[in-house]
């Protein structure tokens, strides 16, 4: 297993939005997917995942619905809304700009 890193502050929302942009998922699914995609390099703090989900739901970026899963249990599925998609674009753009700037500074200074 690779060394695990804490998330940079402020990036959790963006990652969740990104994961959900591929399709709806329940809470555990989001955690799982994040870990998978980062090849277990990211340790998602589950303690901040749910408050973040609820906050984003409150802001209208995602919506939640209780549905039956493939193994016949009820689960709460989150999906991106139109506002959420816009937010994702915005955050992604910001992130790319930011990381480019940081990279430039780090390489040239």
């Amino acid at each position, binding site marked *: 297993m690779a060394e695990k890193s804490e998330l940079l502050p402020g990036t959790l929302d963006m990652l969740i939005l990104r994961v959900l942009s591929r399709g709806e998922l*329940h*809470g*555990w699914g989001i*955690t*799982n997917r994040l870990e998978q995609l980062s090849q277990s390099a990211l340790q998602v*703090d*589950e*303690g901040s995942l*749910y*408050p*973040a*989900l*609820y*906050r984003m*739901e*409150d*802001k*209208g970026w995602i919506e939640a619905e*209780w549905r039956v899963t493939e193994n016949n*249990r*009820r*689960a*709460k599925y989150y999906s991106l809304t139109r506002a959420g998609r816009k937010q994702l674009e915005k955050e992604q753009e910001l992130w790319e700009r930011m990381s480019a700037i940081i990279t430039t500074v780090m390489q040239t200074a």
Partner: protein
Amino acid sequence: MTFFRRLRHLFNRRRSEAEMAEEMRQHLEHRASEFVGDGLPPDEARYAAQRRFGNLASIQEQAREAHGWGWLERFLKDLQFAARQLLRSPGFSLLAIVTLGLGIGANTSMFSLVNGIMLKPLPYADLDRLSAVYRATPQKSDGGLAPADFLALQKARGSYGDFAAYRMGRVSLSDPGQAAQIAFAAQTSANLFSLLGVPMHLGRAFLPGEDTPGRHRVVILSQRIWLNRYGGSPAVIGRKIRVDGEPHEVIGVLPPSFNDWRHLGNFDFFRPFAFTPEFAAERRQADLSVVARRDPSIGPAQAAAFIAEQGARAAREFPEINAEASWRTVSLQQEAVGSSGDMVLPMLVGLSAFVLLIACSNLANLLLARTMARSREFAVRGALGASRLQLLRPLAAEALLLSLAGGTLAIFVAGWFRDWAAIRSTGDNGEQVYFAVDWLVMGWAFLASLVTALAFGLAPALFALRLDLNHTLKSGGRGAPGGRGHQRFRQILIVGQFALAMVLLAGAALFIRGLHDLHHRRSGWESAQAVTGAIVLPAGTYGETEKIAAFHRLALERLAALPGIEAAALASAAPSFHWTDVRKFLVEGLDRPEPGREPAAMVNTISPRYLDVFGLRVIAGRGFLDRDDRNAPRVYLVSQSTARAFFGAADPVGRRLAVARDGAPAWGEIVGVVADFENVDPDPNKVVHRVYQPLAQEPRRQFELAVRVGRGVSPATVVDAVRSAITDLDPDLPIRRLQPLDQSIARTLYQLGVLRDMLGAFGVLGLALASLGIYGVIARTMAQRTGEFAIRLAIGARVSDITRLVLGSGVRLALTGSALGIIGAIGVSRVLASAFPGVRADNLSVLAATATLLVAVALLACWLPARRAGKINAIDALRAE
């Protein structure tokens, strides 16, 4: 959107909670099964999952916050907690709520007065374009117009708009199967209701032209008399009723909203004038109230100028009548508010604010004591890291709950006040003054309650926050350590309370005294043995003067013959109030003034024994005799001061007077002089002269009957005999207000009586609240200083020393407060004196008595808790340390 989502979460809180728990449980399950997959035993896998997840409760808390209702939920929790806290000390809560409720209640009641008198619009359409037109003379600033003047005004109106007129009068109303009653009726121009914009509840309004003779026998009933006398039956339309003995057809019923006591709501019914040629030409009898509606295109200043110009024209054309008169307008709403709006209302609101302030400082004291008792709790919570806001929140919640309860109680108080005022003011035709407790009043109660509870509830809390934590914790929460500041604060509150209570009490006492003087300043006449009542002979049956005179003769004979009655009289007015019949006189031998500027005198038309009935003295010449009738030469009596003004030191008997009118003066001889007297009307009389003339020489259809009972006979016992003596003569004749004169006087002065009772209530309330306040403070002092007193007792102090110490501190506060209050009381008495010129309000002995009473009550309130000094057991108290 967000809002609705949040709202859904709030109302489905239980479900959201369950869903959140379920979601997290599933998460833990997944994680645990993952760990099991990694090879952990199930139990450990579960624990590991939980460790990984973190503190479930705190995460749920954070998640709840995210839904945005955290503050509201916390607030509801605070309220629940506060409610429990308040219920745990019911004594405190009850005291606080009652204090707040009474204080706000007094204030809300006064606000309902302001609301009912000033704020509520009259029930007319486009009120801002309606105004009253007055004819102002040196004798009367708000006199009416004569019929000819009114008709001239209507003719000249041009683009002004329109004018309507009405005249009040008492008439007898009878229908088959119902007892006749004297009704308060108005005759109006046909356009009155259309001009006011009042729709009919039933039937129709007057038609144009119905104020011409022959078509005028129609009436419109007020809602009140329709309900009371005709049972609210729609069948009343088209029915014939007898007004002054003549049949009239009921054509309409006014809506309930028209029963507004401030303007025309006191009338029982309305009927049109009959503009006969003589009536339309009448220029002297200026008794029509005129209402003007100006066209939207005419501004108020323009309108006023037009009216003034019309008045000036009347003065130019008929100087012998209008030389001293000018016309002016006042907006109708302003007229309805009347003079009480200028001074009395602000004064009442101000005084009720004093009551409220006393209540508030009591509340502050109570809450401060409560907060101090919990200072240790606050210190501990502060030490454990609670923020100031967290410390304040439960206190604010308590204040909020108290204010809600207090505001509710205040609305009840305002409701009781409304009922009381309505009962006190109910007249004999059922008309009454009504101050609705509407949304505005309720809003006021809650707003005032909220503001006071928060302001006075949080002030002590802020004190609590200033506490030095260390100090409080170290001192073991005993007493009020380091509380010099708040001790001072409480003392200032007490001093302030007593100052305000002094103002209230002294104001009330001065007014009560002044009113008492007014009631009893009847110098020169007596009322204790008199019974009076008003009679209106219907014009239909008593058309000819002969018939009226015959009725007068018979009535006097019958009344005088009744057992227990010393003397009986009929007259246009009793001496109790100022007389409304004002005429201008020519005095023989004096230079005739310019026409229209002759001296005015109040005239009373009396039967011979009138002076005996009221104990008025004849000081020169003779009174009227039976022989001074219509066939005898015209005779007059004048009052002493009138005689002096007209004739100086010369003997007035034998000189001659005549009523100023067109043509040759009809002279009459002055046969006697009547002693001056003062009536009980608080209004200063602008007409100073009094002239009496014999009833037999000018028989009237409207008159007062008056009898005097013998010594030792209670006036109330002859009322029935008097009534049947009159109904024997004419069974259909109603007598209005037949009762002992003292009773009528009290009834007529009821507004002053209401004012007196309100001021009295304020005074008593203020005194009670202030006593409660000082009692609480002294009781607290006793409790806090028990240890100190125990030591004093142990080293040889006597119980009386301790009592004196405690009493001394309380009485000092009360005295300081009262001394400050006297200054305010003098201010209030000034206001009273200028608002009620007849009421003298500068009575020093009353002020001194009030101050003594206040200090005595304070002494008692201090002494009750101070007594406990004798019960201190030094050993126990010291051991308890």
